[in-house]
């Protein structure tokens, strides 16, 4: 029982900290990396909360697909910026 508590407190804290770091990272290409880590930590929290279905989704979407889109968008915007 206490073991679950420790796991819960640790994973919740990690998620809260990582979320804050994502928001505080102003530079979007670095933010994509932090976002990926945040997605992974959320996935771990969901495993602790006994939600494997949600964890699987979150890890697929939150650590791979969304950060990849962010990276691509940032790269495109950079390309546009470099010619001005």
């Amino acid at each position, binding site marked *: 029982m206490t073991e679950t508590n420790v796991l819960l407190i640790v994973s919740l804290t990690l998620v809260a900290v990582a979320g804050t770091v994502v928001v505080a990272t102003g530079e979007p290409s670095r933010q994509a990396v932090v976002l990926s880590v945040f997605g992974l930590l959320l996935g771990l929290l969901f495993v602790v909360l006994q939600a494997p279905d949600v964890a699987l*989704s979150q890890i697929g979407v939150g650590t791979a697909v969304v950060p990849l889109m962010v990276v691509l*968008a940032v790269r495109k915007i950079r390309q546009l910026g470099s010619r*001005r």
Partner: protein
Amino acid sequence: MSLYAYLVAGWLLLAGFFGVVRSRDLVHTAVCVSVAQSGTYVLLLGIGFQRGAGAPVFAPGIPTTSPVVDPVVQAMALTDIVVSATVTALLLAIAVQIAKRHGTVDPDELHALRG
């Protein structure tokens, strides 16, 4: 402890808002919107959690009478994740077009819509 999960959820929600308010880059804004949404996943799964209960999947060998956590909030969170990913995709696509039309993605420098 009993409040901690909910407080983390509320924190993420407001942190996302904070990011949107202070953002200097629309890509950053879009990502902060998704952080705000992750607060709702934590809230939902926190509400459905039960100590000592297993995942709501009855693998072979697990008796169907054993306690499981709430599957309904998990289904809601799944929908929520899809919504988050798709909204982020749309916002990023729009941000790319804004960069093309305005030559910037800094919200402080966008002046097309005033009054």
